[in-house]
């Protein structure tokens, strides 16, 4: 029973992280119909930036996280401004190739700057609640909830789930209650009409990039806390998160959240119970099955027949 519970938690943690990344993909897609391949790299850079801030400066952890969010938001806007904006009216695939180019550039820049080896946050830089461990001699458990048959549930995992929920809720409110949220929804429905109504489309797109990138940075730091930081992390997590966004119906924020959680759970249960080697494959199988049954994802509205 506790195995099941733990796998559920594992799945939810991964799902929360995927959801945080996936909203970045889906928000951008909703407005400019671009698969922003570089989003995975922004997520990776968010983790690296926080790591550098906590190791090289005396800044406290949380300040580093906030700064990293700001940095990624600016970076996201900058990428949009430099790379994507000139291609607004070009064929969609040109923008896609540009996104791949940006992704490649950032990935290799990171590889050259920090080498491809894995890094983790040093223990003394992390707040205490993230340092869960078990004493091998006494079996004493630190910063984690002991479960009946010897397993433990680290606070980190619980924290990540809670944080993901809070951020998702905040994003939902932002999109539905604020003026900028309204503008974003308007642009998603019809950018030309929105522009005619006096909405500055480019500004709205910038804000969308900023919000998505900041959430990506948070996800990056969370992965860094729980797992490791390396240049290719953006690619590996990004692909799964993108699958989540499509699964939920790309362009739909609620769909991305749910899609993330489904993919996370599929990985945890498939990898834990059936076969570790096929861990990623389970996510893809579910994704394919869902799309074949519902051709526009779980929450997607069926779009006009246009490629």
């Amino acid at each position, binding site marked *: 029973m506790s195995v099941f519970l733990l796998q559920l938690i594992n799945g939810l943690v991964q799902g929360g992280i995927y959801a945080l990344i996936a909203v970045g993909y889906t928000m951008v897609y909703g407005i400019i119909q671009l698969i922003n391949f570089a989003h995975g790299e922004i997520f990776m850079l968010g983790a690296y930036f926080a790591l550098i801030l906590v190791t090289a400066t005396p800044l406290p952890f949380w300040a580093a996280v906030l700064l990293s969010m700001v940095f990624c938001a600016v970076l996201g806007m900058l990428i949009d401004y430099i790379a994507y904006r000139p291609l607004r009216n070009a064929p969609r695939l040109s923008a896609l190739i540009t996104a791949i180019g940006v992704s490649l550039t950032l990935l290799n820049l990171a590889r050259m700057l920090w080498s491809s080896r894995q890094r983790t946050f040093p223990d003394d830089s992390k707040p205490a609640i993230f340092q869960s461990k078990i004493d091998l001699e006494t079996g004493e458990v630190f910063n984690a909830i002991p479960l009946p048959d010897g397993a433990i549930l680290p606070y980190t995992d619980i924290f990540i789930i809670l944080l993901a929920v809070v951020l998702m809720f905040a994003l939902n409110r932002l999109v539905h209650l604020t003026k900028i949220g309204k503008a974003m929804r308007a642009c998603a429905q019809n950018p030309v009409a929105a522009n005619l109504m006096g909405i500055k489309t480019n500004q709205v797109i910038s804000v969308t990039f900023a919000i998505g990138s900041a959430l990506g940075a948070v996800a990056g730091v969370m992965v860094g806390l729980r797992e490791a930081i390396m240049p290719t992390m953006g690619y590996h997590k990004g692909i799964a998160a993108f699958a989540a966004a499509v699964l939920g119906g790309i362009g739909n924020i609620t769909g991305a959240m749910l899609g993330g959680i489904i993919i996370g759970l599929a990985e945890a249960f498939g990898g834990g119970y059936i076969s570790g080697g096929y861990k990623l494959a389970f996510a893809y199988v579910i994704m394919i099955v869902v*799309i074949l049954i519902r051709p526009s994802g779980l929450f997607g509205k069926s779009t006009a027949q246009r*490629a």
Partner: protein
Amino acid sequence: MKNKLTPQNIILILIVCFVPLLLFGIDLLARLLFDNFGFDLPIPGASSILRILALTGLYVLLAVGLNIVCGYTGLLDLGYVGFYLVGGYTVGLLMTRFGISYWIALPLAVLNGAFWGLLRGVPTLRLTGDYFAIVTFGFAELLYQIVKNEEWLIGNVNGMVNDIPRASIFGIELDQNLYHYYHILILIALVVFVSYRLQHSRVGRAWVAIREDEQAAESMGINVSRYKSLAFAVSAAIGALGGAFFTQLQSNLAVEVFEFWESILILCMVVLGGMGNIRGAIIGGVIIGSLGEVLRIVLGFNPQLADARFLIFGVILILLMRYRPDGLVFRKT
């Protein structure tokens, strides 16, 4: 492709056919220089250049194949590498396990590729745009995982098939890069011919109609499902052909060769050249297919820079798309 046999085109074809001669000439010169004067020309040997050319040719072949789905029917295929994988393993396993000759295994691989193309294509007929793209991606990734995990299927771990025999023709074993070069040249000629004929036939016009407006095409009496399926099958068959050739070039297979990144690379070639255009696909294939290796050689004197070749590659992609968003060859057919 309009003026088929202008003098320029003939000269180009002749040059392509006699490149090996030129390379071996330079090689001989360099060898003489080195043996007699101890002077080392800093150029790679002819055979290794031919291998890079053959590899580039393989990418050209794949780009022309992908162009059929992406360019003609306008669907975004992110899993083309799946068919490449199918072709490679079909030939690899048939040859190593059953001792079947390459010349029999090759058509079987092509048929198998077409079969998998239909298998993937039929359920995805009603999908559009990015949903189609992500299913193709998932499909290729599943094939990758299966080959990687199922040892009984491949007979070795990690999808490794070793010591694939080389084909032979009139008793000559085709194990030199020179032969590979002509081998891929013939395959490209074949594929370009098929692709060109299809494009300028009823089928090609139906594909373009589907790309421009699927509903309108349907209402004009075009059987959209059938034509789309045909595109999937032909495109997949060409992918499998590429895989089959790869077994000959490399003589062994490992599953890492067929990673997602390859699909993206091939897609970049098609888009870079200009979608729906055979010449564009060829040019894109030549540029991107050789860029990695060319950068490796050009930047070879400085390890730091050689390390940065993918960074440069990314920047080149961005710049090209910024200034030539419709691809290098503009005119769509």
